[in-house]
């Protein structure tokens, strides 16, 4: 409900302020007569946008519990990524190239995608800075897995195995950083 109210306030405010700005034309006859009206509408518009932002933020604070529930699910996914990549690392040397390619593809299209799709929960609970601490190494690990995928598609087993191995420590780093954040969430 708060989300809808915020949306309506921000939309109405943007409309009012944009129309007011569109009206500010010194070449139109009677400009002085419209200057005050334009300013009034612009102020009304900005006030509405501000109100919408405040309503939205109060809604986000109230849905903190919701965000923490989402975070629990995200933590499970991150754990799964680490587990899958570790198991892949252990199996390297015994896997055929096509099997390696299939495993990497499963990890990328499965838990890695699930984590990136659900990352907003991290931002909502811990803020942008802490999110970056976790996502930085995660994204680098993802890129290494992508390279392993490409190399295995191109038939280069050495390169594929090397980068599949290199991805593991990065995902573990992301997991460790997440652990350091704890469960309390960032102070507002």
């Amino acid at each position, binding site marked *: 409900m708060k989300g809808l109210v915020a949306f309506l306030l921000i939309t109405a405010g943007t409309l009012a*302020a*944009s129309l007011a700005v569109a009206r500010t*034309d010194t070449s139109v006859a009677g400009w002085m007569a419209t200057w005050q009206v334009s300013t009034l509408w612009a102020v009304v518009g900005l006030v509405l946008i501000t109100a919408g932002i405040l309503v939205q933020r109060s809604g986000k604070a109230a849905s903190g519990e919701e965000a923490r529930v989402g975070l629990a699910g995200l933590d499970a996914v991150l754990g799964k990524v680490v587990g899958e990549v570790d198991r892949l690392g252990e199996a390297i040397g015994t896997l055929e190239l096509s099997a390696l390619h299939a495993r990497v593809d499963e990890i990328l299209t499965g838990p890695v995608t699930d984590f990136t799709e659900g990352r907003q929960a991290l931002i909502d609970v811990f803020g942008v800075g802490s999110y970056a601490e976790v996502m930085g190494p995660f994204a680098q690990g993802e890129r290494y897995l992508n390279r392993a995928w490409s190399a295995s598609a191109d038939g280069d087993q050495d390169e594929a195995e090397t980068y599949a191995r290199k991805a593991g420590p990065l995902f573990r780093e992301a997991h460790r950083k997440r652990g350091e954040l704890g469960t309390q969430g960032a102070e507002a």
Partner: protein
Amino acid sequence: MKKQGAYREITLPAILLGVGLGVLLVACFTYAGLLIGFTIGGSAVAAILGFGILRGVMKKGTIVENNINQTIASGINIATAGIIFTVPAFYLMDVAFNPLLVGMAAAAGAFLGVFFIIPIRKQMIDLDRLRFPTGTAVATVLKSPGAGVEKSRLLLIGAGISAVVYFVSQFPVKFGAESYLLGVHTSLIPAAIDLGEILHLPGFIDNVWAVSLFSLGAGFITGRPGLVVLAGGILAYWVITPVAVSQAWVPADLLQHFHALTGAEARAAGAELSEWAHGNLNRPIGIGMLIGGAMTGIALAAPSIRAALGSLRRIDLKGGDAEELPLKTLWFGIGICLVVLFLATYFAAGIGPGRALLVSVVGTLWLGLAGVIVAQATGMTDWSPISGLTLISVVIILALTDKSVPAALLVGAAVCVAIAECADMMQDLKTGHLVGATPLKQQIMELSFVWIGPFVCLAVIAILWKSFGFGPGHDLSAPQAQALQAAVESVLGGEVPWPKYLGGAVIGGMLGLTGVAGLGVLVGLSMYLPLAYILPYGLGCVVQMGFQRAKGVRWIEEKGVPFAAGLLVGEPLIVLLQSILIITGVILPPGS
């Protein structure tokens, strides 16, 4: 199969192919840009041709090697977007200039664009996870060998449909008799459908839908975040413009002309009103919103950007593990380019050294900010407001130099090339992330060859001017440069819509605080773009949302994205073919 030797990434064939394709694309798209007013990025074309040559003919190209090819080719080609907007204005306005100095300035701009955007890679790609639809589509093309038959088939089907539709709608050959669609006269596949005419709406309520599968595909890949673009377009074209007309905020002569006519003539007059409102109301407000929204976004992302700069500071190239260019290299490069830009401005524009230095510094700072804005907009939507932001730089330079047109156009060319390179580099780095390329290698390759594009483009423009001429009354009308000329002449006449720029900036800045990523940028962008392309783009977003709800995220990634990627790559291939056939005289330009 186990291959011996290092995994092929930077190779001589990839470099030669990239440079060759880049030069070919510059030549073709310079011509196309002067003819029809827009250019294509070239990444998709280079990726497809590279696939055919490196993998098909040479039988040994790898995915990351082809990525290097398309990085080089698109980096060279994208300079076209910057040059054709600005340099033809020298000719149109009969302003004397030294092509070598303009080339130097533009090349400096190209380098600066790459240097400025590198520190933002982590923020936009790793953290914000911006979609970069073309970058994603190109990655899908590059990965097709290993993606399985199904994904490759979907990619080819999408590309085929897009290519055929564009071919039929754009080539000046009628396929069968002209037909009537719901009472509206059209050819077999029209280039656009005027829904406003079909629904008998007043002419000033723009409701033209471009038959652009490129836009549809880009919207599909973007998904839900792209709906904001549609909302902004609706605000501009279906709210502000009709209110402005109904309240007589438009020139009295245009309004009287509209009211005096009926039927098709009234529709045409209504379209003129819409065009006036777009150029004088929505566009400056939209540009202001873009800037305000971007500045708020940068401020909010400051902690992450600081962290990214910190990690760049710690990079040591000698260690061998470096994945990006270190910060000190970037600063050094920016310093050198600033000196080159200063020298080009000083010797070319006939202004004193103090003014030349001021203009160079301000131009460099502006292109850094504008480059980030354009990269963000491209990442969110695939659209880039290059011309609008270049226009601002021209206005600023005119103000700083007491209205020196040579200085404004020269620095404008540098800025325009720079911000085009920013967008292209980010698209390429997104592709690189998805295929596992090393960012450092892409950055080095881009910097090694990016200077070629401006000089080739300048040479082509000079040849076309001598052989055919361009501008009003010519086949090569150079519409973008004409728009810049009109803007410069307005500024020289004292007409700069500052209240709209500033008002838009305040609104955009406020929208940036809503927590919806890039809201101010997206709404501003959509007020600035033609509605004809926003509508199919928005439709693509809605279609993606519908399929995601029905079939799930996995289906979108496995089936939807490959098909949409094909839609994105089909059109550019036909534009390239069309340009080659027109240049060689096989066919006539459209409208002839």
